[in-house]
């Protein structure tokens, strides 16, 4: 069933980078959560479980020819849109947002798989679509609708970060397919009133506050702006070489918020300094380039588009998360893929990696 060529063509480079990043992440989580009073399994051990689970998922996903995804992508899309609607109606509310859906024995967060499915549905759409000379505004109508519906539902939860990610992933794929200048300009122009309307009618107060605090962190130094300030202090105080493993005072004395999840990079920056950050960023950049490399050497449009989409997903997570903790983007609650603690994030990232591996190992199939 599994072709021998698939084993020989397995992309060890990509797999290796992913394992290195995961390992650095686990070490970092160990330090970040050292000051916590832990009841039960420590976070870094749980993260290891998630990595193992993710790797099992990689094996499963890799064993299925990704072309099969092409056929089911619309079905998946329809199902997830339905689940997003259900979440809004009966979902579980935690910390002011309704994101989780309880399905008897387990809970899911439909917005997470939606990122992957959005990539699938767009890849499916463009793979059968003639795009000579670039996409016109009319060509963008259906894809925009595909993305707009789930993005609006996710924002309603409200989960601004994921909604923005879905839109950015889609835009990256549009850019790959090629957009005509006229359509690009039209999009930009129409974005202005859209942002205006979103600000006044759609965003919640806490979301607006996050954005305002990002623009002016001193505005409210003791509540939401506090996170950004403390994070910048942590990273900056690390200097060139960092304070050393387990030696970050900001992290160990818990001045950082959510320091094992969204702000894991702050802990890393404080303890490993500029050199550590540079190495981690280069690893990520290599991962991105490799993803685009997979896209470029893939022989079919669906696979290539999927590879770009998944790479874009990883890329935007990385840029937004790091940008957030170093204070150049607003705090939107996006984890650093493969690095932050968290099962959901790990599974989504691993599925993305699996799709890349899948495409990479089947590049000679046609």
């Amino acid at each position: 069933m599994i072709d021998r060529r698939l084993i020989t063509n397995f992309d060890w480079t990509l797999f290796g980078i992913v394992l290195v990043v995961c390992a650095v992440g686990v070490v970092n989580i160990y330090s970040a959560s050292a000051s916590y009073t832990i009841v039960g399994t420590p976070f870094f051990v749980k993260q290891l479980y998630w990595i193992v689970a993710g790797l099992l998922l990689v094996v499963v996903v890799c064993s299925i020819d990704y072309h099969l995804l092409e056929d089911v992508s619309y079905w998946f899309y329809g199902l997830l849109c339905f689940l997003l609607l259900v979440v809004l109606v009966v979902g579980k509310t935690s910390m002011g947002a309704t994101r989780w859906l309880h399905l008897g024995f387990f809970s899911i967060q439909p917005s997470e798989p939606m990122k992957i499915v959005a990539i699938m549905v767009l890849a499916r759409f463009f793979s059968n679509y003639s795009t000579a000379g670039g996409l016109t505004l009319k060509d963008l109508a259906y894809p925009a609708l595909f993305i707009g519906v789930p993005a609006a539902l996710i924002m309603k939860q409200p989960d601004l970060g994921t909604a923005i990610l879905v839109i950015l992933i889609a835009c990256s794929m549009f850019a790959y397919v090629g957009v005509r200048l006229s359509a690009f300009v039209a999009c930009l122009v129409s974005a202005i009133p859209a942002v205006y309307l979103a600000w006044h009618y759609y965003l919640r107060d806490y979301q607006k506050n996050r954005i305002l605090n990002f623009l002016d962190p001193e505005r409210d130094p003791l509540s939401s702006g506090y996170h950004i300030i403390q994070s910048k202090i942590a990273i900056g105080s690390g200097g060139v070489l960092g304070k050393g493993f387990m030696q970050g005072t900001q992290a160990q004395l818990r001045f950082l918020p959510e320091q094992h999840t969204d702000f894991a990079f702050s802990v890393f920056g404080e303890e490993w300094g500029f050199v550590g950050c540079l190495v981690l960023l280069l690893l990520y950049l290599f991962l991105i380039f490799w993803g685009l490399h997979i896209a470029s050497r893939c022989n079919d449009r669906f696979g290539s588009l999927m590879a770009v989409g998944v790479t874009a997903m990883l890329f935007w997570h990385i840029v937004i998360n790091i940008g957030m903790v170093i204070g150049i983007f607003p705090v939107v609650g996006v984890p650093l893929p493969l690095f932050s603690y968290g099962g959901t994030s790990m599974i989504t990232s691993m599925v993305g990696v699996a799709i890349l591996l899948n495409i990479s190992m089947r590049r000679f199939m046609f």
Partner: protein
Amino acid sequence: MNGQRFIHDNYGSKRQLVVLSIFAAALFFLLLTRLWYLQIVKSEELHSQSESNRLRLVPVAASRGTIFDRNGAVLVTNRPSFSVAVIPQEVRDRDALLERLSRYLEIDRAELLDKWEKGKGRARYYPIVLASGITRDQLEVLEENRLWLPGVEIEMKPVRQYEDGTLAAHLLGYIGEVSDEDLKKDAASGYNSGDYIGKSGIERSWEKLLHGRDGGRQIEVDARGRVLRTISETPPAVGSSLVLTIDTALQKQAEKAFGEQAGAAVVMDVNTGEILAMVSNPGFDPALFAGRMPPDKWKEYLEDKRHPLENKALKGQYPPGSTFKIITALAGLEEGLIDERSSSYCKGAYVLGRNTFRCWEKKGHGTVDLKRALKESCDVYFYQLGEKLGINRIAAYARKFALGAPLGVGLENEKGGLIPDSAWKEKRYGKKWLQGDTLPAAIGQGYVLMTPIQLAAMIGAVANDGTVYRPHLVKRVIDQEGRVIREFKPEVVARTSISPRSFRLVKEGLLAVVNEGGGTGGQARLYDVRVAGKTGTSQVVKQRDKRGAIPYQYRDHALFVAFAPYDRPEIAVAVVVEHGEHGGSAAAPIARSILRTYFERKSSAAKPAGAGSSPTGGDEKHGTGGNGRENANPAPQEEE
């Protein structure tokens, strides 16, 4: 599979991937630039911020120095005081908590809320003090109910303990939390909000030495402000202690002698200027200023017409009345205008131009020489002498006694009194000095003003034949082990260069005041010690008819200055009884009581225990005591 779906020949897509790669690299470069800015450019600044995040300096107040009297008895020391503070971030239900605290502490809820609101905006997890100086009973109630008071902390800090309650309150002064205004001034540099600082008296003047050097503990805290460990510690340096010149027993007796009367007394060693007692009556309770001053008590202090908060010994300026005749007499003797044989005739009043200046004795004294003029305080004698001297010569002699300017006792807001002369009147009122102004000045009325401390310094200088010592309160500064850090030697403010003969003649008159029949100061007489003194009555308002009941605030002030023993003077006493009316009857007995205590203590110290009763014990109602009355004459001006 449809051939259309393959892109290996699609050049456009390959180019797009290059664009995407460049875009990705550019954004990563942006992140790196920012990291470089934070971790290399701003690293130092952010590192120090991370340090100040985790490190907190907790001040440790130095224990304040003790204040002793001249015999080593403790006057002021320290005791622990408890205050209630709250950490707002740890309180869930503020209203319920305030309700409870208000009930336990019996403090108005609004007052607690006010303190809470004012304390906001400080560092996170920083305790806000809601009530300080709580009683032991309240402390017990709080401890018992600790469970119901989450976020509430009890803090302990040392406060002043006044061993004798209100004794010498003005002189010792009080401490209180440093005010916001003081913090802005250089005077309070090194102080933080909430620190205690001397606010008046010795506590204020000697703040630097008494305070000591506060220490501090550098502690590491986590984001919730919980203390993790002490990183470094600077122990506080205990403040220096002061040994005062005050004699507690004498001070107590002097305060007791005043009773309910308002006034001031100063007891001074005539050979050193050491102040043995300094009274300003009524007093106040200095302990109330360090804790929570009960509002009704505060109101009582402010509304009392006798001004209990003011140190009258230094700030009270009174017309010296007939005590000033000493100066006029010395001036006349030195200028050769009078001698022991010259005399004047007093027919009860003296007419100058169109004005009549009355003697307090309406019947007149008849022919009086200097000794009798002093003894019976004849006003006419001194009117005539004053007329011959003129104001500028009187003022010059007054200034030989350093009058008209503060003596530099070393406490805040000491007043200088006033010695008027023609130039002064010209400058102050733009009017010429008239001979009619000189006559009241010659008997210490009119414009002349002196403080009780100046009265004491003056009579002290008369006693020692002309040396004005600086009155002082601190004998020495000692450290915690009792080692002397600084010793204060007598300091001369002025030497009068008046001849011993003039002093002898005046002092003979002063001896007669107390010890001869007809003298105005008979009530100051002691059995075995010869006391010399001078009575004085200073006019509060001009009032021709003084018969009948005069309202308290319009009654004359009673003054008495004295020194003893006559032959070898040791101490000088000045007493002012506000609205006491007659120096001889109101002030002299207080002076006598002080002098008696002094000499009793001296003889019992010289004759150790078992040597029998004090020889001064039986001198009550000895001699005729004189009439003890004299009246100030109407002067053309009104005084305070």
